[in-house]
């Protein structure tokens, strides 16, 4: 029995990264990705933007090439992109080659296409492997067309060929079906095809020894058109024998058989040494790389690191190098060599003496690494050095981002803003632009600047780092916090009335400002905003008019009556705009949350943008805090109204809606007590009303 070598391979983990976690329902938007660029194609073509320390190593390799001044060639870009598309599951062929085969087969048969063959076959232990590759189907289509044109689509020769080929592909998924030998009466070409078809059927049926012997026999047949191909496929039979079925040992490590793998390596080297087999050399090299990854991982890692640093290579080589490098990087048994690429990646990801490397080499990629991890102490030296990097450099957005970070840490606000203004004039990847806008929001000198920079469009979803085309901007968390907690009401109203504001940004600000104006009895602001509010939510008009007409003493009750009928009236602004970003149905009570006002007693923000430096919101904050959470405000108001004017027709309805509202809103320390009181009052004093009958329970507030 062949000696088995256990190999811990992260291959599968990497290949299946996108499905390693069951699909998440967490749809929190991402304004930039932590682990990947938002547009891999532009990234590979030099639009590097701002890379993060959590970026996957495949992306860091690409960044290294651009930042070190050795951009990948067009062929390398093609290879890198094909791997990254594959890993991000971005690439989907227009049609499965198996379907192309099925259509071609059906056309010759004169029948409707049926189900295409399934390419995957069960290896073992519930795992499948791709048994019939795309090339097999595409080659079969090509040969079928050729034979049809030579012998006629309806000829006995083609019918026989097709029978055999259909049998070959029956083995792709399961079973063992071997075509019969060709009749002597068939043309020699069809007989040669048949020998190949029989060997191929054995290959797909996992009879690798038989398949190899048959392929080698064909390789020795000077009359066979399959002579060259058969030599390569004979080596592939050995590679399959070594790796299929997929197995794992007790510790979960993958295993393969050494002996056939080594034999394959010898066979492939022999093919490379044979000039008459030149047409197969590229394929032989590719298969040798497959074997080297398994047989000589240490050497392979050094080889691909060198290839990736130096370039250029063909697209196939580039993809293979990037694939193998990143997979071997994860292997504990592969020693990481002291090459510049690996050191740089390790430094970006885990820190290290980046500044020392920059001082030693003066290379731009080390300057970027040094800037990314620089402390305030190292700032002066790095700011001076990085000042020379121009907008035409791939490193510029990353450099500008970290320069601004260091300047802000040194309280050089104006210089940081100027740096950000300059870089934001450039064409940038969306995620990088969003990161830079976040920095510029923190130094905004005016409300207009702040609102302008708060209109950012997500690049996808955060949980799984998946791209998604958002067609509208959303309020990022920091902007929502500043507007909600540190911006005076008048300014908030100004923000809501800013021209050309996207509705997903405007509506949450508008409703917060208007609701706040009603609750704080600021009629001037409420009137100013009312036409816009009514335009988006006409239902509020009736209760708003009642509020306007109410006397000063009655205003609180009118406000409560307005609020209790509109679960969407929030005096606060939530991250991403909350429910109001995309929903203007103010009347509804959203069972997913986001109704009325939560009261968390948030601390004032530690720092605010310069335009708010002198703003005083303490009085407004205090007044809002005194009103309590939404349910508390409503319950208290209707209990008070019941005390003042028990016959007011608004009371039973208001008590009922407020009690029911506690189920769908945040409370505070007073809410539950008030809910019980309101419930008891409703059922005692107003027991005969429909409202009492429709309110069978009171609820403990939650969230």
């Amino acid at each position, binding site marked *: 029995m062949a000696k088995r070598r256990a190999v811990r391979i992260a291959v*599968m*983990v990497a*290949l*299946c990264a996108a*499905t*390693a*976690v*069951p*699909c*998440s*329902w*967490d*749809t*929190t938007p991402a304004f930039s990705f932590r682990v990947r660029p938002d547009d891999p194609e532009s990234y590979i073509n030099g639009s590097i933007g701002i890379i993060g320390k959590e970026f996957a190593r495949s992306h860091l390799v690409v960044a290294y090439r651009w930042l070190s001044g050795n951009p990948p060639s067009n062929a390398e870009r093609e290879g890198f992109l094909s791997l990254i598309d594959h890993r991000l599951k971005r690439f*989907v062929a227009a049609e*499965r080659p198996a379907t192309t085969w099925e259509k071609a087969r059906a056309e010759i048969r004169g029948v409707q296409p049926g*189900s295409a063959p*399934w390419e*995957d076959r*069960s*290896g*073992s*232990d*519930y*795992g*499948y*492997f791709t048994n019939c590759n795309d090339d097999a189907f595409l080659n079969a289509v090509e040969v079928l067309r050729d034979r049809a044109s030579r012998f006629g689509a309806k000829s006995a020769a083609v019918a026989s060929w097709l029978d055999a080929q259909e049998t070959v592909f029956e083995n792709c*998924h399961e079973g063992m079906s071997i075509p019969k030998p060709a009749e002597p009466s068939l043309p020699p070409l069809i007989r040669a095809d048949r020998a190949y078809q029989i060997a191929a059927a054995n290959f797909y049926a996992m009879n690798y020894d038989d398949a190899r012997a048959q392929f080698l026999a064909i390789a020795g047949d000077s009359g066979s058109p399959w002579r060259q191909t058969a030599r390569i496929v004979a080596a592939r039979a050995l590679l399959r024998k070594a790796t299929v079925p*997929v*197995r*794992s040992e*007790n*510790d*979960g490590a*993958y295993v393969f058989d050494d002996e056939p793998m080594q034999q394959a390596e010898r066979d492939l080297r022999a093919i490379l040494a044979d000039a008459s087999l030149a047409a197969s050399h590229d394929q032989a090299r590719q298969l040798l790389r497959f074997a080297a990854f398994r047989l000589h991982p240490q050497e392979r890692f050094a080889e691909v690191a060198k290839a990736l640093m130096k370039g250029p290579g063909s697209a196939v080589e580039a993809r293979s190098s990037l694939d193998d490098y990143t997979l071997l990087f994860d292997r504990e048994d592969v020693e990481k060599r002291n090459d510049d690429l690996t050191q740089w990646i390790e430094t970006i990801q885990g820190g290290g003496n980046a500044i020392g490397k920059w001082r030693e080499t003066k290379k731009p990629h080390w300057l970027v690494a040094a800037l990314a991890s620089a402390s305030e102490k190292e700032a002066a030296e790095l700011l001076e050095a990085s000042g020379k990097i121009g907008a035409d450099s791939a490193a510029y957005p990353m450099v500008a981002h970290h320069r601004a970070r260091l300047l802000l840490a040194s309280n050089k606000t104006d210089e940081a803003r100027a740096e950000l203004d300059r870089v934001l004039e450039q064409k940038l990847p969306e995620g990088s632009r969003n990161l830079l806008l976040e920095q510029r929001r923190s130094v905004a000198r005016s409300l207009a600047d702040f609102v302008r920079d708060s209109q950012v469009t997500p690049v996808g979803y955060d*949980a799984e780092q998946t791209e998604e085309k958002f067609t509208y901007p959303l309020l990022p968390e920091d902007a929502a916090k500043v507007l909600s907690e540190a911006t005076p009401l008048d300014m908030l109203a100004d923000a809501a009335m800013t021209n050309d504001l996207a509705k997903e940004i405007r509506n949450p600000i508008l409703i917060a400002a208007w609701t706040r104006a009603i609750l704080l009895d600021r009629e001037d602001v409420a009137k100013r905003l009312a036409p816009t509010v009514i335009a988006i939510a006409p239902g509020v008009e009736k209760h708003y008019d009642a509020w306007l007409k109410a006397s000063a003493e009655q205003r609180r009750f009118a406000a409560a009556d307005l609020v209790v009928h509109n679960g969407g009236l929030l005096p606060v602004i939530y991250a991403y705009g909350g429910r109001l970003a995309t929903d203007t149905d103010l009347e509804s009570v959203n*069972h*997913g*949350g986001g109704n009325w006002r939560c009261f968390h007693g948030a601390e004032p923000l530690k720092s605010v943008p310069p335009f708010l430096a002198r703003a005083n919101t303490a009085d407004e904050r205090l007044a809002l805090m005194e009103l309590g959470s939404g349910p508390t405000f409503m319950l208290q108001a209707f209990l008070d109204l019941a005390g003042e004017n028990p016959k007011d027709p608004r009371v039973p309805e208001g008590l009922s809606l407020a009690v029911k509202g506690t189920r769908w809103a945040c409370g505070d320390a007073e809410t539950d007590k008030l809910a019980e009181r309101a419930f008891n009052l409703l059922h005692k004093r107003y027991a005969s009303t429909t409202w009492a009958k429709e309110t069978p329970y009171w*609820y*403990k507030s*939650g*969230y």
Partner: protein
Amino acid sequence: MKRFAIAALLAAVVILSRADGEGPAAQERRAQERRGSLTSLGMTPWAWERREDLRFLGEGKSVAYYAGLITLDGDRIDIAPRRNPLLLPKNTHRIAVIRIETKSAPRQAPVDAIKKLFRNAEELQIDFDATKSEREFYRALLFDVRREIKARLTITALASWCMDDRWMRGLPIDDAVPMLFRMGDDAKVIRARLARGEDFAEPLCRASIGVSLDEPVIAPRSRRVWVFNDDRWTEEAWQSAAQFASR
């Protein structure tokens, strides 16, 4: 209910007890009992798309394993079966979990694809996200699957479907597993409602819960528990799932 509580108590005692001073056979027997106690309490691990060796569970337990992904894109149906090996003890009750995703409005029900991926299993679980416009498609698909595959059929369900939505009413399934992890924005609200004693309004959701080792669980008691682990399962990880068994 009483039996469940006693079994849970026993499990907790067994888990907490130390095996010091016992011979290897006794230790192994105790380990078997311990492992068995978790699954006999209705604990099922999800074995996702990574290499997994679950032989430590012992014989006769249930395992829900990722069997593959079916992607629907108009008329096109792509099947990506499980790639990673999965080692199971003998006589495992195998639940094939098939994930379905859509790229564009599906026009064909992937019943054949589901049948292909379902082989080797005793029970089927379908994992999908249905937008409102896709709900009728999934409803029809589940009826087709029920007709074609004679096995216990469950689905994973958003907690919000189970709480407030009524769209699952009448689905031809045996159980819908409310997924109480990776809930995103809904998490706070769902947890608060469950914490104050609410149960899932949808009756199909009242037999089990889906939880993850790395997230806190607030849920009704006495349910079958499906446990997700964000990493490879190990015996230690499975022991840590005891927190769900004893709740």
